[in-house]
């Protein structure tokens, strides 16, 4: 295998293409100097093969390799980490490309290429990012074929299809035991999330990002509309005016153990973001199908016990009555009406409302009118320095959800109404192809809960200021002009431009759905999912076995038999051949038997003698040995046509010459 073949890498199109694709897929994980080094080596190789530029002496190769190790070590203080390994791997590939000569070099490059492609998945789990890596993966297999007669794509596809059963069995049955744990370094994972504090500006930072936070799929037949989707993450109890804090948390103690009349089940696949919160809809009953330890708090929120670096999947159930409520978190607690000292103008305003409205409901209505009718504007770029409540409420009057939620809760408390701020996400984008909601950082939101009649009731002051933010959803809302954002209603555009936008959305939804299924079926297949599969299989193993046997029988039956030429086909073929020869004015004796006629043709047209001999061999095999012919009628027609074409070209060239 190691014979010197003096191979040219520029002639190895699949190898070169696959190496470039693999390199491209890990380009964001490696230092820039490695990319530059790789491209330089490739350019040098190109010049060596095309312009006869001298090659770097082979004896310098260990020096180059050693230098790469040294620089990587100096940069990372190690050579064993995830990023270090991929950098060294790319460096070695570049050196090997430069010195590519033998079959052994080729095989080594393929192995390193496989390794690069597979290691890409250590950095990202995103379907789209892995697409070029997967293309490169199949490209490397293609380079291993040596036979030029074979249809490589078709054969590789066949091998891939035949590999699927083994792949499925291995993937499903291989135990997902945690033997030793290595930490990922996800380069494309969202790094932002909610903290335990809500201060002006914290959510606007999130809203600027398009990062996926989670996908939600309703498992019950009933679903909620955009404006009812409030995904709660954390509840903030302590107020400092416009800044709010979580305060101490109490474990959940159920008040009511009766089964609720109406409940909504849904599945959440949470991306790796820096938050311990698990997002649920209002009045959550429970979270299930989640194997890791988690906390349930009296504030109707859930959180993980420790951070995570990969996506998690869980199912949850929410209800619309008070069956999910907690004993220890009653709105009647004094904590929920405590307010910091208010600025003078705010205090006067509170006093006025309290005098005119003597019930909590009327007071809340008065606050709603205040926010709805006194010129508040929703904007992500509010005037700075409105940590002062007076300035915000009576002078600047602009801000976004966190300002309104924080101010409204403070005012409610000042009016003696228990209130708290909830942070999480509102709405999302519905993917009609995959029937799930995609929630991104753009959907980050803050709203309030007020205590009425001993129960917590959701109030969203942002909806008073900007109803479209809640009814349209963040994605569409932020695509509007600032003027349109302030309107109460919005009429959708039905022009041709809107049609193309909608078409583009469908394409996005399609890929998004692929990514969702990819995550749902593949990435979240853990020990628990495996146990579930085993449980299902145990009950129906007979049917599965029977189906597999039946499938294998069908596949065997579908295998195409070689189209052996029979006597009848041969006669038809001979007739066709004689007609073709006549059409080409090839003079032959029509009275001769097929074998003799062919021999005569070979004598008069020596350029076709080789083909005629092979054809005669098949004829003899068929007629005298009474066996199947070697090739099909189609094969022979193709060969004859090729000969006729060559003959025509030859005759034409001869005529041109004469």
């Amino acid at each position: 295998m190691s014979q010197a073949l003096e191979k040219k890498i520029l002639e190895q199109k699949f190898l070169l293409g696959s190496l470039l694709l693999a390199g491209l897929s890990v380009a964001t994980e490696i230092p820039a100097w490695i990319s530059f080094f790789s491209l330089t080596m490739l350019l040098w190789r190109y010049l060596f093969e095309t312009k006869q530029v001298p090659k770097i002496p082979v004896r310098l190769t260990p020096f180059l390799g050693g230098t790469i190790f040294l620089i990587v070590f100096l940069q990372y203080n190690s050579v064993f980490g995830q990023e270090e390994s991929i950098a060294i791997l790319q460096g070695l590939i570049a050196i090997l490309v430069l010195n590519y000569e033998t079959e052994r070099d080729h095989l080594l490059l393929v192995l390193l290429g496989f390794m690069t492609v597979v290691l890409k998945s250590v950095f990202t789990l995103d379907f789209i990012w892995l697409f070029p890596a997967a293309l490169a993966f199949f490209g490397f297999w293609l380079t291993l074929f040596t036979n030029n007669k074979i249809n490589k794509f078709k054969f590789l596809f066949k091998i891939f299809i035949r590999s699927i059963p083994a792949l499925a069995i291995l993937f499903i049955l291989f135990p997902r035991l945690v033997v030793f744990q290595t930490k990922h370094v996800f380069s494309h994972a969202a790094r932002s999330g909610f903290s335990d504090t809500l201060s002006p500006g914290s959510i606007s930072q999130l809203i600027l990002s398009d990062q996926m936070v989670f996908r939600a799929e309703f498992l019950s037949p009933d679903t909620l509309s955009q404006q009812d989707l409030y995904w709660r993450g954390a509840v903030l109890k302590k107020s400092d005016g416009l800044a709010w804090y979580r305060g101490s948390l109490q474990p959940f103690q159920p008040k009511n153990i009766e089964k609720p009349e109406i409940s909504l089940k849904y599945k959440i696949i949470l991306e790796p973001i820096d938050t311990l919160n698990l997002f649920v809809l209002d009045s959550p009953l429970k979270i299930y199908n989640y194997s890791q330890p988690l906390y349930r708090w009296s504030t109707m929120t859930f959180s993980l016990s420790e951070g995570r670096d990969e996506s998690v999947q869980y199912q949850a159930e929410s209800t619309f009555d008070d069956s999910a409520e907690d004993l220890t978190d009653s709105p009647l607690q004094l904590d929920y009406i405590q307010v910091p000292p208010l600025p003078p103008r705010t205090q006067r305003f509170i006093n006025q409302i309290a005098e005119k409205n003597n019930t909590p409901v009327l007071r809340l209505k008065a606050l709603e009118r205040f926010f709805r009718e006194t010129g508040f504007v929703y904007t992500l770029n509010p005037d700075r320095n409105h940590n002062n409540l007076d300035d915000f409420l009576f002078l600047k009057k602009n801000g976004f959800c966190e300002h309104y939620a924080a101010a409204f809760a403070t005012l409610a408390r000042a009016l003696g109404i228990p209130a708290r701020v909830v942070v999480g996400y509102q709405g999302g984008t519905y993917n009609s192809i995959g029937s799930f909601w995609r929630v991104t950082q753009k959907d980050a939101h803050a709203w309030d809960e007020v205590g009425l009649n001993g129960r917590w009731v959701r109030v969203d002051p942002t909806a008073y200021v900007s109803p479209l933010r809640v009814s349209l959803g963040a994605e569409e809302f932020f695509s509007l002009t600032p003027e349109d954002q302030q309107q109460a209603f919005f009429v959708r555009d039905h022009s041709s431009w809107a049609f193309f936008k909608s078409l583009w959305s469908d394409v996005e939804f399609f890929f998004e759905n692929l990514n969702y299924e990819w995550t749902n079926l593949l990435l979240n297949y853990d020990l628990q999912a495996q146990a579930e599969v085993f449980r299902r299989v145990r009950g129906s193993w007979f049917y599965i076995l029977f189906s597999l046997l039946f499938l294998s029988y069908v596949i065997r039956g579908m295998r195409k038999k070689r189209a052996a030429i029979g006597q009848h086909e041969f006669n038809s073929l001979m007739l066709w051949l004689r007609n073709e020869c006549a059409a080409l004015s090839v003079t032959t004796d029509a009275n001769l038997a097929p074998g003799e006629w062919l021999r005569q043709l070979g004598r008069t047209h020596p350029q076709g003698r080789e083909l005629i001999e092979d054809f005669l061999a098949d004829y003899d095999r068929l007629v005298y040995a009474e066996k199947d012919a070697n090739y099909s009628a189609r094969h022979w027609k193709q060969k004859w046509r090729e000969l006729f074409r060559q003959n025509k070209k030859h005759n034409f060239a001869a005529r041109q010459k004469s």
Partner: protein
Amino acid sequence: MLRKPKFKLATGKTYIIPTGFGLSFGTLAFVLLAMAIGYGNNILYFFVFLLISMGLTTAVVTNKNIEKLSINDLKFEKLFAEEKNSLSVFIENKDKAEPLWDLIFYLAEKKENTNLVGELQATNKLVLSWTPQKRGLQRLPRITAESRFPFKMLRAWKHFDRADKVIIFASRKGQEELPPQPGDRSGDQQGRTESEGLFRDYREFQKNDAPSRIDWRRSLKHGKQLVKNYEQGGDQHIFLNWEMSSFAGSFEDRVSQMSLWVSICHERNISFSLKIGSFETELSDTRQHYWACMEKIALLTEVEVPR
């Protein structure tokens, strides 16, 4: 008398082992599997299992590529020791659905004389060369068919052995001039036979030629000693006996000399007789006579010839 028997091959088992590349591939898959377990990463698992399952499928394809191969027939003419002989091998693909690819054929362990078949649809014929070292009854060397198709990760092979023996004629070496006959007109050691015909050409004098055969005029002109060669006549015959090869030296050299003379007689259609020890034939130029004589020479032992 031994005759060329009907050919029959014993087909061996199909063996399959990983190549160096296959072992490297396996090691890589193992390392990546360890990483997948360590990271608990399902995409790593997916790619590793895809690598492994494609490797397993490859093993099945490589194995089938040899398993479905059969050798239907093996044809050869005369086989001579120390000469390159051609063996025609007729191969068949028993799989009716798919062709076989990249088959390498070679004899025994001598892989340098390989023959590559890129694609085998149904049947094909290939020629392998074989140089036996000794004369006599021998087994044909085993034919090995090997394949590393499709990805060179595995090497599968199968041996085809012939159970019975074939006869290898003695090597044809020595003096090409036929031996002088009793009653030759010049009495030369290596004179012309009675039925020598017309002059053909000149050749250089050799040590066994009679000096009287030298054409001195021609020799002076060309500066070297030349003797005349003559065409064989139409009704030639020659008596060959073991004693005539006494000049050749060792027993094996004499056997080779006899083999050469008999072959020359057969090629030139000269009627000949052969006497070696108690073995004696009548004058004949038939193929059967030639085979009988060559077989006798091939199987000749020292005890059968007069010392």
